[in-house]
């Protein structure tokens, strides 16, 4: 069964109040999003600020009502059965606000009671995130942003939810705690839990996610396996030569070939084996193949979408002018 399914999910916000003679304007926040998150996977939802990531999450939890389309979470309708959805989901809001007057212990206990499920993972999570008893016994108002984020992660996962929805989860965490958080996600994956998280930190998504969706201006630009997305990326190759250069002109996947001063550079796309076969026996002093980065894929997708939009706009302008 799928953990999350959306079909044509659309959300438009009303902009300003309607006045006589001036109908209310609507701003599209999410447009026709159709998506499936499989049970047991870690799914990244990528996009810059304002792209619609939080809007989708809030629609899944019933905080917002869709303008069109529908969403099911764990087989339940996100609008009509939102209370039942929230009983089975753990949620970390982006830039979480907590009850400042409570201590960390009181806060977690209160949210456990509201969840109606025992906090079976709390001790383990606190240990992993280095939330000691001393820290948990002081008021939340005295905690730093990073500490609050850790409390946010614990409150979202302490009752071992079937699905964790995390909005910018590593924000405010130092590199050590980010690593601890990634280990927590690996644990969740091993125990068959599903994680849906939004982020604009590409290295993090690349590190932990099985699949990603890239959202741009409220529309889905791509939904792919991280591995296949990376496999298709162009990698930069640099060779220092001690002898004559190899002939790479006919090798599949090689572009931007440049040779000079005992140095060969090119771009390599797709399967690297034809390239490796072609350089066999070549006298080299050094060889560097930079790993494919999600960041490049992300930027390429965005650049491609922008170019397509610009082309469409210019076609539209030409059409209206003729």
């Amino acid at each position, binding site marked *: 069964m799928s953990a999350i399914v959306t079909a044509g999910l659309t959300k438009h916000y009303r902009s300003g109040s309607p006045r006589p003679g001036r109908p209310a304007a609507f701003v599209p926040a999410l447009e026709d999003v159709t998506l499936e998150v499989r049970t047991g996977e870690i799914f990244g939802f990528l996009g810059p600020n304002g792209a619609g990531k939080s809007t989708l999450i809030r629609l899944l*939890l019933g905080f*917002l009502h869709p303008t069109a389309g529908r969403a099911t979470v764990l087989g339940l309708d996100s609008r009509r059965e939102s209370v*039942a959805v*929230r009983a089975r989901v753990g949620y970390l809001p982006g830039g979480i606000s*907590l009850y400042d007057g409570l201590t960390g212990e009181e806060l977690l206990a209160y949210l456990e009671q*509201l969840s109606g499920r025992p906090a079976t993972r709390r001790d383990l999570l606190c240990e992993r995130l280095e939330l000691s008893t001393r820290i948990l016994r002081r008021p939340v108002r005295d905690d730093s942003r990073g500490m609050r984020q850790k409390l946010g992660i614990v409150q979202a996962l302490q009752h071992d939810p079937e699905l964790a929805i995390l909005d910018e989860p590593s924000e405010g965490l130092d590199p050590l705690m980010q690593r601890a958080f990634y280990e927590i996600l690996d644990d969740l994956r091993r125990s068959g839990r599903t994680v849906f998280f939004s982020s604009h930190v590409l290295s993090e998504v690349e590190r932990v996610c099985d699949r990603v969706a890239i959202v741009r201006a409220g529309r889905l630009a791509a939904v792919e396996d991280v591995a296949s997305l990376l496999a298709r990326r162009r990698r930069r190759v640099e060779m220092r030569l001690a002898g004559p250069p190899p002939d790479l002109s006919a090798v599949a996947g090689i572009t931007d070939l440049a040779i000079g001063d005992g140095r060969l550079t090119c771009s390599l796309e797709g399967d690297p084996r034809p390239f490796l076969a072609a350089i066999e026996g070549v006298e080299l002093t050094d060889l560097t193949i930079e790993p494919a980065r999600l960041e490049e894929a992300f930027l390429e997708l965005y650049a491609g979408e922008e170019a397509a939009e610009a082309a469409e706009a210019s076609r539209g302008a030409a059409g209206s002018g003729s």
Partner: protein
Amino acid sequence: MISRPLLVHTWRTHRVRVALIAIALGIWAWIMPVIYATFGRSLEVILHSGVIPDAFLRVLGADPFSLDGAVALGVIHPIAIALFVVYPVGFAAAAIAGERQRGTLEVLLSRPVSRRSVFLTNLVATIAVAILTTAAWLLGTLVGAAAYGLGDRLDAGNLAFLVANVVLLLAALAGISLAASASFDRLTPAIGIGIAVVLVSYVLEILGTMWPDAEFLQPFSVFHYLRPMDILAGRAAPGDLLVLAAVLLASVAFGLWQFPRRDLAAPS
């Protein structure tokens, strides 16, 4: 429909402030029979000497320096009104809009708690505070009267009706403030509506009492449906309770309709 953890959390968060208000109201109520017993006769002479205009006497009630009049004044005096309404208006207005403004509402609503349950739990908490503070006022009145041997001059049935009337007035104000709270993302407009209803109602009632030409405005004031002097004199009007109950039900119905329908966008 009532969330017990939310109710307990609300009580724990507010218990000290509620206790302080209850003590203040108890002391205020205790003072009224004491003033009557100590200064009542001489003040009555001054009030009836013609120095004070009749219009002002009408504001105080028909017989302000009888024991019943002193007790009634203890309910409708601006200080008493301020103490009585601070929670039904202030807390109720902050209950949802305040959490929304602070960003904690989404932590609460990420749990399996419906918006209607949040609304009703806050309503129950506010009415419980209204009952508690009114009970403190009653206790202060009874202790003050008993201290001067006046306890037997207060009619238990009339006092019970007055307590019910006060609680219902506070519940109606709480319902209005909570409905406003459920309608806004910011505390300021919610609390503004609550305070405006109290101030406008109070001004309309006073204006209508002092100026006969403005009497037609009084039915538009919620305070018009709390007449402590008439109640203590045995002239209670059950219709007043019905009007206040209707205001409460209408505001609760609006809040329960409006809150679940609203979009709760990400806090800005």
